[in-house]
C-alpha cells in the first residue's frame, strides 16, 4: 500500500475502534440506567436509576458497589409497600412541577393507617426524606386538633393513668388546653 492508503486505513481503524468504544460505553450506561430491587417476599422491580436514587440508601449502594446486575434486597419491605415506594420515587423523579406533585402527594397519602406506618418504616429504612416527611406529616395531621379521647381511639392507645395522675397532668398542661 502507498503511504496515503496506509494512513487512510489506520485512520479508518482508529474510527472503528472509537465507534466500538462508544457503543461499549453506551451499553454500560444503558446497564447503569436501571437497578433491580427485591422485596421481602421475593418480588423484583426494575427501576430507573434516576427514580431509585431518590433513596439515599440505594444511591450510596450504587456509589460504592459496581455490580448493578445484582438485585438490591429489602428484607424489611413487602412487595405491596415497595411498589408504592417506587411509585412515589418515579413520580418525584419526573419533570412535573411542585404544585402538581403536591396535589399528587395529597392523594397518594390517603391510605390506611397500617399502610401509612409501613411506608414510614420503609421510607426510613431506604432513606427517602420526601416520602418520610410526607407520611410523618400525615400522621401528625391525624393528631392535630383532636381531643385526648379521639387520639386514643384513632391509635388504640390505652389510658394507663390513674384518675389522680390524669388530673395532675391536666393541671400541668393547662396551657395547652386553652
Amino acid at each position, binding site marked *: 500500500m502507498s503511504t496515503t492508503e496506509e494512513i487512510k486505513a489506520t485512520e479508518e481503524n482508529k474510527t472503528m475502534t472509537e465507534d466500538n468504544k462508544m457503543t461499549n460505553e453506551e451499553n454500560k450506561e444503558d446497564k447503569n440506567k436501571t437497578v433491580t430491587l427485591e422485596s421481602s417476599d421475593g418480588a423484583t422491580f426494575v427501576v430507573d436509576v434516576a427514580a431509585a436514587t431518590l433513596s*439515599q*440508601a440505594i444511591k450510596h449502594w450504587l*456509589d460504592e458497589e459496581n455490580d448493578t446486575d445484582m438485585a438490591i434486597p429489602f428484607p424489611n419491605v413487602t412487595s405491596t409497600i415497595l411498589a408504592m415506594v417506587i411509585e412515589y420515587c418515579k413520580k418525584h423523579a419526573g419533570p412535573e412541577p411542585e404544585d402538581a406533585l403536591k396535589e399528587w402527594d395529597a392523594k397518594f397519602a390517603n391510605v390506611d*393507617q*397500617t399502610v401509612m*406506618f409501613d411506608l*414510614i*418504616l420503609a421510607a*426510613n*429504612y*431506604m*432513606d427517602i426524606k420526601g416520602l*418520610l416527611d410526607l407520611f*410523618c*406529616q400525615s*400522621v*401528625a395531621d391525624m*393528631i*392535630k*386538633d383532636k*381531643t*385526648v379521647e379521639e*387520639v*386514643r381511639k384513632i*391509635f*388504640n*392507645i*390505652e*389510658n*394507663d*393513668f390513674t384518675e389522680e*395522675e*390524669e388530673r*395532675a*397532668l*391536666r*393541671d*400541668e*398542661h*393547662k*396551657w*395547652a*388546653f*386553652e
Partner: protein
Amino acid sequence: MLHCSKILSKTLKPKPKSKKLKSKSKPKTLKSTNPKDPFEEDDEAFTLKPSESSTTNHVVQPLGNLYLTSNGHNSRDSGLGDLKILTDELVLEILGFLDGNHLGILGTVSRSLYVFCCHEPIWRNLVLEKFGGGFVFNGSWRGTYVEICYPEFDVSRAKGDGVVVRDFYSDYLFQSWLCAGIEMREEWICRDNVARRRGISVEEFTREFEEKNRPVLLEGCMDDWDAMRRWDRRYLVETCGDVRFAVGPVEMRLEDYFVYADNVREERPLYLFDPNFVKKVPILGAQYDVPVYFREDLFSVLGDERPDYRWIIIGPAGSGSSFHIDPNSTAAWNAVIKGSKKWVLFPPDVVPPGVHPSPDGAEVACPVSIIEWFMNFYAETKNWKKKPTECVCKAGEVIFVPNGWWHLVINLEESLAITQNYVCRRNLLNVLDFLKKPNASDLVSGTSDRVNLHDKFKKAIEVLCPGTIDQLLRKEEEKTANAKKLPFWEAATDSNAGAFKFSF
C-alpha cells in the same frame, strides 16, 4: 440508616434529627431505678452531672432492663397503641411536625406519650424555629416555650411532678437522656501526648511543626493580651451584653446566651461561635494579638472578600465540635482565654472511628454527639498504632491545628476562646488545589463567592508576591522526585479498614 451531614462550617446543625449508628457497646443496664439516688459506682457506670431539679420526674431505662423485670411490661408499647411498631426516632420525627399546644395535649394521652412529649430536643427545635435567639432560657426548653407562649401560666406548675413513670424502656431515649447528663470520665481526659513548647522562635515553629504538619501546644503567647486580663463575664456583659452573636442556627444576645449556658443540661449544648465578632464589637479585636507564629496570612490579600477566618467561641461544659477538618484546607490556631478544652486530633490519613466522610469530602457523617463518641469509640483508639494526638488546652495556651487534621474539641468547663484559620506560604499550593476542585462550591465555606475564590485568590497572590506560586510549584516537583514511597504495609496497617484518604 445513616444521614450524612455537612460539617465544613463551624455551626451546629439546627435540627438534631440525625440518625444514630447502632451503638457498639453492650446493652446498658442501670443498677438503680430510683431517680433520687446516684447510680452505683462501678467500672461500667457513668457519673451524672449534679442537678438541683430534673426537668421531669420520670426515668427512662435502657431496653436491657426490661428483661430483668418479672412482668416484661413496657409502658412504651402499651401507651403508643398502633404507633408502637415505629421506632422511637420515627415517633419523635412525627412529633416534630406538631405545634406546642398539640404536644401539650398529646402528653396527657398515655404514660408513653407523656415521656415522648417531654423530650427536650423537640421543644428546643420549636423555640429556635419560632423565636430564633429571642428567648430567655428558664431551665428547660419545654418550660421556656410555655413561658414565652403562655406568659399568664405559672410555669413552675409544668415541672412534671404529676406523674412518675418508671416502667418505660427505650434504648434511644435512654441514650439521649444519659448523654445529656453524663460527665467526662477521667480516662477520656488524662491522655496528653501533644508536643508542648514555650518561647520558641518562628523559625523553629515553622521547621518543626508547620512544615512537618504536626500539631503543637504553645505556651506563653497570650501573656500580653488585654483579653487575658479583662475578659470575664462581667466585662463582656458590660461591653456587649446586648449584642447578638451567632449561636448555632440563630443569633442571641450575649447576656441571654449566658443565662442559657448557666442553666442548660443537654447532649449537644448550643455553642456561641461568631465569625463577625470584631465587626460587631471592634474593641474586642483590639484586645488580642495574632501570635507571632501565625502572622503570615495569605487570605488577607482578598481583603473583605476573604472567607470567614476568625471566631470568638463561648460555651458551657459539654459544648464543642465533633470530628471535622477545617474548611478551605487552611491551618488554624485556637487560644483559650478562660476555661479548658479537651482536644483529640487525627492526622489527615487516619479517619477517626465512627466518622464517615463521603468520597468527595463534601459531607462527613458523624452521627454521634461528642459525648457519645467518647462513650462508644474512644476506647478503640487505645489499640491503634497511630494513636490520636490528645491534650487538654488550658487558659493561656494556644494549640496549632495543622491543615487537613481531623479534630474534635469539647469544653470541660465553661470556656472562652479565640480561633483563627490562615493560609501560610507553605500551605499555599494545598489551598489552591483545594479551591480548584470541581466541587469547590460545595466544599469552600465561609464566603459568598465560592466559585471564583480560586481565581481571585491566585490573582491577588500573583500581584502581591509575584512568582511565589511558580517557585512553590518547582519546589514541590523536586520534593516528589526525591520522596521515598512508604512501604505498603506501613501505609495500610494502622488505619481502620476503608480509611479515607483526604487528598489535595
